Structures are given as structure tokens and as C-alpha cells.
């Protein structure tokens, strides 16, 4: 295989052998390299895979990410900490709220900002709603890739309910830019809580429906059980996180291990798989959705009253009403909006449990209003690295199942 990956012709004709002359046996024995993606619809974006095949068996796979590289980390260096919030929306564009939250939690740790309780609960509530939406997209597309078309119609129907909820709160369906350093953009509207409660009543029933459709479906089982197996040890060594890791039976959930927002105040279980195959991860994610609903319900019950922005005027974006009447607020508004706060010098790494896995932000601060360097630990990127190990030895059609099961989004992978 050559570097450019387009080695179909060279590997065959280079050996002075033409397709017409070769016997079927020779072709089977001959290793063939084919290029999959970056426009392949099942690669969930623009992932390019260079697959070495022995007949229909995958003997090697080489992921070539980078087609959606926008230089986000570099871009962040030229923006203030505040302006980076919309940029994080463009990382994992299915579950923007979790990216917002990950960034903001990291900045808050760097600056030592105390966030009021109500804001923490709303953040958690919105993050779990978004997690549901992310998992629904995953389930729909994963099933679609494997051949169960109907599921996608159902999951997107429910996802629409979540997006409507998101829009009533944040004003946008996906790229929400809702979480602010030190708090939230705005409080939730009055009718949101009722709507949300209504949704938590409906949603578990819908989950049953998805189970009815595929959980015991024999094709589904054949396509998922025993495919893409990862032992617990391998999963840890490969740096897998999130449901991909927990499918192998490793109990590691950042919401439990290092609670952020208000995850230490609610009860939920961490679903675990045992087999570490595609099916186990499917079960884990379905159960995670049930747990998310549980968290949302607790949030709705426990939601405290109070402010949604930190009390520290250095970081709190002032209330609009005071800006043009109060000199102090006006000064804060100008500094915050034009150049942001001179942050403390130092480095910080904070990881949060995004739907895809551990989303970490490593920030180096030089004491100005803009980060000196940001490194994003993107779960999708790490998971793509596990593809070769996962797929090798399986059929070529299992590549699709494995891409689905690691649940990647290329916006985050390539950054």
C-alpha cells in the first residue's frame, strides 16, 4: 500500500498480473487495498479509511482523519475565553451543549469561579437532554448503517422534541452557545419545566419501542454480537472512554469519578457491559438514556431558585438593565466584551463526560484574556485510533458496524 492509498491498480498491475488473467483463487489470496471515504455515507462525516482486504476479510485498516480540520485549537488562541464558547459548538456539532459545558468548566477551574447552584442544575439538565439527543442520533444512524432503517425515523422523531426544548431555552436547536463562563446565558423560560417533565414521561416508552424494533432482531444480533470485541485491558490501553469503554465492563464515568455541574447531588447508575462488543455498547448506551431521563427528573424536582450567574462581578456578564444606568456595570460590560478578563497564569486540564466519551480541554494561560494554547482531548479522535484493532479480522461490512459503535463525529475528531 502506498501513502496515497490509491493503490488498487499498483498492487495488482505492479505484480504484472491483470484482473482478467488472474484466477479467482489468486485474487482471494492477493491482498487488496481499497479506499473507503471520505465521502462514504457510513463514515459519519468525512473519515477516510484505507482498508487492506483479503477477500472480504479485513486484514488491516488505516484511518486517515483530517478532512474536517479547521484549525480550531489555533483559532481559539486568537479569541477571548468568552468568544471560544461558540467555537466549541463546532467541535461535536450534535451535542453542542456538552462541549460548551466542557469548555466553561475548564475555564471556571482555571479562574476559580464559583457558579450558583441553579445554574449548575440547569447546566446538568440541558447537558443530559443533549446527551439523549446525541445518543438518539447515534442509535438512528448506527441502526441505519447496519440495515435497520426504521429506527432512524423513530429516534429523529424524539430528537425533534429535545431540539424543541433546547430551542425554547437557548434560542437555537443545535449550536446553542448557551453556557457562559460563570453561569448561563439566560434562565429557563417558565413553561420549560412542564414541557420537560412531559417529555420525561413520554420518552421511556419510546425507548421501549426502539427495543421492540431491534433489541432481539436476529439480523441485528448477528451483526452486532461478537463484533469489534475489546477486552477491558485493551480498552484502557487504547484510551477509550465513555460508553465505548464501559461496554467492556470498565466502570469509569467522569460524572461519578470527578463530578462537575451538580452530578454529585443526583442519583444515577453507570450502566456497564461485559462482552465489549458492538452489542454490549449498544445496550450500555440504551441504558445510559434511561439514566439520563432519571437525572433529568431529579433535576426538575430539585431545581433550586436563585441567580444563574456568578456573584463575582469580574466574570459575571452584567445584567442588561444595569449596564446603561450603572457606571461599574458599564465598565465591566466593556472589559468583558472587548477583551475579557486577565485570567490567572497557569495550566489546567479539565475533562467532562460528553456523550462520546471524555472531552477534555487543556488550557495554557499566559495571564491575558486569550488562551496561550488550547488542546482538546477529543474522544472521537481517540476512538478512531481503536478502529484497526477493533475491525481487523472481521468482514468488510463489519467496518460499518464498528464505525457506528465507537460513535464518532468528525468535527471533533479533526477539530
Amino acid at each position, binding site marked *: 500500500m502506498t501513502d496515497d492509498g490509491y493503490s488498487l491498480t499498483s498492487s495488482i498491475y505492479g505484480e504484472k498480473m491483470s484482473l482478467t488473467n488472474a484466477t479467482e483463487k489468486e485474487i482471494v489470496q492477493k491482498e487488496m487495498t481499497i479506499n473507503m471515504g471520505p465521502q462514504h455515507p457510513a463514515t459519519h462525516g468525512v473519515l477516510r479509511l484505507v482498508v487492506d482486504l483479503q477477500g472480504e476479510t479485513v486484514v488491516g485498516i488505516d484511518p486517515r482523519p483530517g478532512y474536517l480540520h479547521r484549525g480550531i485549537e489555533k483559532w481559539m488562541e486568537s479569541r477571548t475565553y468568552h468568544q471560544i464558547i461558540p467555537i466549541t459548538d463546532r467541535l461535536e456539532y450534535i451535542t453542542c451543549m456538552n462541549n460548551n459545558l466542557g469548555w466553561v468548566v475548564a475555564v471556571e477551574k482555571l479562574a476559580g469561579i464559583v457558579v450558583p447552584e441553579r445554574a449548575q442544575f440547569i447546566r446538568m439538565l440541558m447537558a443530559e437532554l443533549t446527551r439523549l439527543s446525541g445518543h438518539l442520533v447515534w442509535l438512528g444512524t448506527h441502526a441505519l448503517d447496519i440495515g435497520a432503517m426504521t429506527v432512524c425515523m423513530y429516534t429523529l422523531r424524539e430528537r425533534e422534541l429535545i431540539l424543541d426544548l433546547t430551542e425554547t431555552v437557548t434560542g437555537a436547536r443545535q449550536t446553542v452557545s448557551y453556557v457562559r463562563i460563570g453561569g448561563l446565558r439566560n434562565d429557563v423560560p417558565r413553561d420549560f419545566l412542564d414541557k420537560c417533565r412531559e417529555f420525561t414521561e413520554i420518552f421511556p416508552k419510546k425507548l421501549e419501542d426502539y427495543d421492540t424494533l431491534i433489541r432481539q432482531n436476529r439480523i441485528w444480533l448477528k451483526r452486532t454480537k461478537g463484533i469489534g470485541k475489546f477486552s477491558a485491558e485493551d480498552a484502557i490501553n487504547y484510551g477509550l472512554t465513555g460508553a465505548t469503554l464501559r461496554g467492556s465492563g470498565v466502570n469509569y464515568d467522569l460524572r461519578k469519578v470527578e463530578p462537575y455541574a451538580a452530578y454529585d447531588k443526583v442519583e444515577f447508575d453507570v450502566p456497564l457491559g461485559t462482552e465489549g462488543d458492538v452489542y454490549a455498547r449498544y445496550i450500555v448506551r440504551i441504558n445510559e438514556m434511561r439514566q439520563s431521563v432519571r437525572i433529568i427528573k431529579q433535576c426538575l424536582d430539585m431545581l433550586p431558585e436563585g441567580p444563574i450567574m456568578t456573584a*463575582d*462581578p*469580574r466574570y459575571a456578564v452584567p445584567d442588561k438593565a*444595569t449596564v*446603561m*444606568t*450603572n*457606571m*461599574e*456595570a*458599564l*465598565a*465591566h*460590560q*466593556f*472589559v*468583558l466584551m*472587548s*477583551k475579557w*478578563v*486577565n485570567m490567572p497564569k497557569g495550566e489546567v486540564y479539565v475533562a467532562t463526560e460528553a456523550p462520546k466519551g471524555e472531552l477534555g480541554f487543556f488550557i495554557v494561560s499566559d495571564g491575558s484574556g486569550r488562551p496561550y494554547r488550547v488542546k482538546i482531548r477529543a474522544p472521537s479522535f481517540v476512538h478512531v485510533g481503536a478502529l484497526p484493532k477493533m475491525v481487523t479480522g472481521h468482514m468488510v461490512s463489519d467496518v460499518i458496524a464498528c464505525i457506528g459503535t465507537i460513535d464518532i463525529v468528525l468535527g471533533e475528531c479533526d477539530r
Partner: protein
Amino acid sequence: MENTVTVTIDGITVKVKPTATILEAAKAAGVRIPVLCADDKLHPYGSCRICIVEIEKSPRKFTPSCTTPVTDNMSVKTMTPDLAEARKRILELLLNNHPLDCPICDKAGSCQLQDLVHEYGLGPSKFTEKKRTVAPSYHSNVIDREVSRCVLCGKCVRVCREQNAVGELAFTRRGDKSKVSTDFDQPLDCEFCGECVEICPVGALTTKQFKFKGRTWNLERIQSVCNYCGCGCRTSFETRLGRIVRVRSGARNYLCSKGRFGWDAVHHQDRLTTPLVRVSGELVPATWDEALAMVVTNLNVIKNKKGADSIGGLGSVRTTNEESYLFQKFMRTVVGTNNVDLLARLKVPKGLNTVFFSGELSKISDHDAVLVLDGDVGELNPLMGIEIVRAVNRNYKKLVLVNSGFNKFNRLASVVLDYLAPEAALADLLPAMKSGKGGDRVVAAAAILKEAASVAVIIPGRTTDKEFSQIKELLSLLKGVTTYPIVRRSNLQGAMDMGVLPDYYPGYQKVGSDTMNRFAGSWDAILPEAPGLNALEMLAGIKTGKVSALYIMGDDPAGSDRGLKDILNKLEFLVVQDIFLTETAKLADVVLPACSWAEKYGTVTSLERRLQQVSRAEEPLGESKPDWDIIQTLARKMGGPMHYGTPADILNEIRSMVPLYADLAMGGIWARERSPLAGADMDLSLWSDTVMKNEVITADRLLFSSGTMIGRSREISTLCRTKAEV
């Protein structure tokens, strides 16, 4: 060292001079203390009280750090909860009368008050009283005063008095009615340097020029060099959407009114945007190809008909070193004549680069005494003037002034020698130095000069032969002399270094057979052997028919001297390369539009012989091109091998050809000992009573009296009260 004291600031121990303040000690320790009214340029004042600190074992709770000197083994805390709370209250009181002007205040974003309020996280104020409002003052030239925004730190008052020795601004009224104003609230009548605007921590002083033109956070800053006099002050062009909106001092040191406000000539509507050629008596726009073809044809015809020495070239002091170098190379290699010179040599101080080499301006104030032989130094080289004031006001040094008139230096001087010309003053001073005889003042001056272990001597820009020999004699009587010749024209030093001289190659290498061979080899061209005509000889040669064509790059002889118009009209062919349609350009057969200095890259050499970088802040206007590019294109069309991609390529060639520049780093100064002319008994200046009289003068200020560019600055024109033509 016995002369230090040990101070501990926030646990960091430093040794500082006993005269240092706590603020200076903190700076040495790397600890930041917030300030509003303190500045390195100014004496301690202590009006804002933001810089308070806690001193251990002091009976006083809070002490202002900017006015308190250190004592041995002092231990200082700069940040405690109490201090933070006290500073908050101080800021709250300052904000009490501060209008909600941030949205329309040009300072917002770089406002020290705003930053401090944010840094200390002030909550809503307890005070609900009505804010004091004072009517703004818009009736001064150039500078507006938004008095309501003032925090009464007094920086503007002090910088005007201490640094500029002008003292135009002062506090008037008392108590809560006090404000910064002028005598009887009259419009400002000062040097209009704008230093008060620069130093204002809030937006109380703003310039009319920059008003509402942009916000500080979206300005792009380009470091460059001022091109209005020989001082070569570092400037920072601030651009918005690709256009300059403001110029500030790049070194945070000083800018005069020309440097700060005079840049708007770049945006003048009369800028040339296309080449012009003369068709049946009229100058009409043409393409570059047409214009250059006309130049090539005519120069070639004249060269073939009358020889290369019938063509002359006049260089400029407003172009960069690279362009000057290329210009003389073009004349010598492509045209084939040594007739290349600077008319600005008429304004070179006698003895510059042979006897007098300027020292570093920033070191004037280190000398024990300053002898100023030309009282107009503040107008001619403003930065030099500021350094003299600094020597007296800040370092308490003695000033001996020779001045025929009366200006700010008279108030600072220890002794004023009030003579009409330096010649007369020196005639009295020299005997006093030698024998101690003479009038009271001369004797006092001589005593100061004799006593001083080091003297900075400001040499006039023009001296007679007698004065020249007198000065030389005087210098031999003084100890530790540093000379500071006044050089008015901007890149005069650079242009001379680059060999825009008929008898010297670049680097003051005398035209002769051995140097010719060396340069001919490096330039790969045949060079003329004999030295060429100097600028005056060229002008005279036009009358006699010896010179038939002139190539003038960036100079305007006809604008300075009307009499030259008739002479230039006699030329068969005249090419002018300039940024405006000057009086000279109006006579030209071909006019080539050049870029202004804000639109090109290159280097310039200041009167300190400091090599500095000029940077492009705007795109070239219209079809105008940098001078080096024009000359290079022309040279190629005439068959000369010139292939430079950027001015940096030219600078590399200069470094290989000119020993003075070989290892001269950007910002470095070439040593006087390395000049081939150092100590030689010769003179680079030209002298003529008849040519280049400055005919356009402004009645009030010498600072604005010259120049193609400064005459076209709108802001500066508002400062010139009367404009008389002689």
C-alpha cells in the same frame, strides 16, 4: 555596594537605590502595584491613592507607594484584603462623578480606570447622588477636553510642565469644581504635541483627529518610524479597515505635533494616483508602461546625443535607505554618470559626519551640562528639545543657552547668552573660557561649562565658516563633549550613507579608480571615472546647457525657490518621482507617482545614525508604487540588471557593499570611528546664498515651516495661524 537598601515586597527581597520609591522597588521586584497618576516620565505626585500599600510596623495604615521613599529593611505588602477594599472605595469615589460615556469614549478598551474597576470587581455603587457634569471644551485646535471624564490625576498638567516645559494646562477652581483647564478657559495655545492626550489615563483628553474613528480593540498596530525630522522617533501607526486613523509614539517616549498629527498628508486628496506625461504642453494621466517608455526613450536619446554626463539625478531625504541606494546605483550603472546628489545638502550642518557625530539623544540628560547653540532646537528637532528639558527638569542638570529670541528654554537655562547670532556669543564665550574675562553672564556660562565633567553641545543646523572654527575651538576646551548637530531633514543621514553624492560611493568611499573597480565588479557594470556634478553645479549646468535632463526623486526645489522654476524649464527632459504634484512636478515631462512612507517597507537612518525599520501600514494609493520598485522597473527597461523582490534584498546588497552597514543590526548605531571621513578636514554640506531660500515660511513656528508633506496635513494647517509667503 553600600549605596543600596534592602526592601522586601510581598516576600520578594530586592536591593534598590536609597532614593527609590516603593513603587520603583516593586517594579524591580516584579510586583505590580496599580497606578493612575504615576508615570515613569513624571515626578511622583500622589493624587489618586490607588497605589497604596501596607508597610509593616508603620503607624500609618495605608501609604501611597509612589511618593514614599524606601528605607532599609522595609517590608511592604501590596495586596491584602484591606488594601483591595480600600482601593475599591477609592475607585467607587472616582466613578461617582464619572459619566456613563464608555460607548462614545475613544479611550474605552485601553482606559486605565475601566481596567482597574474591572480588576477590582466593583459592585453597584452605594452613591445615588447626581453626577457632576462639566461642559466639554471643543474650541481648541487638535485637542478636545471632555472634562466630565477627568479623574484629576494631574498627569496632563505635569507632563506639559515637566516634560515639555510649556505649562499650558493647569488645575483651575477648587474642591469639587476643580478641573484641568487653561488660563481663563481660553483655547489651548501650546506646542500641540498631544503628549497630554497620550498620557491621560481616561478619555478626558482626546484628539479631534481620532475622534470616533475606531475602537482601541480593533486597531491594528504597525511599528514604524516618523519621517518628519532627523530624530527618527519610533511611531506606531494604528489602522482601522486598512486606513491609518491614529499615530502614537512607538517607544512610548515622545512625539511632536508633526509626528503625531501630521500623518494625514498621506490621505490628502491631491495624492498622485497615476503616472502623468506631458502631451502637447499638458500633463495627462498615462499608464505605467507609457510613462516609463517615455522616460527610457528620452534618457537614451539625450545620453546618445550629449553623453551620460548631461543627465543629472537629485535624490531625496524622504525616501528609505534602500531607495537612495538604488537611485544612485541606477544613475551610476544604468545612466552612467556620477551626477547624483542631494539638494538637502544645503541644509547639512557644517562638519556633519566629519567633525560632528551625534551622540544618542536619550543620553543628553546624562551630561553634567548642556550647551545649546541654537535656541530653536525644540522646533527643529523636537525630541532633542525634550531631552534638554528632561536634563534640566528631571535630572537637574545645568543648561547654557544661546538664544536670540525668547522661548521655553530661556526659563530653564542657568545662563542665557542673548546674542543675535552664535558667532557673537562664541566670540565672547571663548575668551571667557580661556582667561575668565568678560561680562557676568559669559563668565557664569564659562564657569558652568568648565566645571562640568561632561557637556552635551547642540550644534546649529547652519553655521558660517567662522562659527564652525569657533565651535571647534570651544569643543577642545571642554571635557567629555558629545555633539548633537541639528539635522532637520528626515533621512538625510541615510541618503548620504547610501552615497547619493557625486564624489562618494555608498559608505563614503571616495570616487577613484580603485573604488570604481571594486564597485564596478560588484555591480557588474561600467562606471564613470570622474566625480560628478554636485547639486548646485547641476542647477548651474542647466543654464549653460551642460545638463539637459534631470531625474528628481522626491524633492521639490521649485517649491522652495521660485527662481528655480525658470532654470528647470530650460531642461530638455525632466522626470519627477513624488507623492504629490509639487511645483517641480508641474514642470516635469513625466511624473511618476510614488508611495508615501506609510505605504512601503524599508529602513531609515536617524541623526543618531540608528538604523530603523519603516513598515507598511496602508496599501499603496491608486497605481502608486514604492520608489525602489519604480527605479528597478525603469532600470530593467533600460537594460540594467536589477532584480530585487523586496527592500530586504536591497538591504542585503547594501550590507555587502557598505562596511558601515555590514553588521548593523536593526535599531543599532554605526560607530563614528568606522566612517572613512571621521576626523577628515572636509565638508559635506553645500553653501549657496542664492539657491533654495525657504520662501514659504509660517510666521509662528519653525516646526511647520517646511515640507511637501507637512504643508498638506489638514491637522497641522489648523495649527498654523498665519502663513506668509516671502
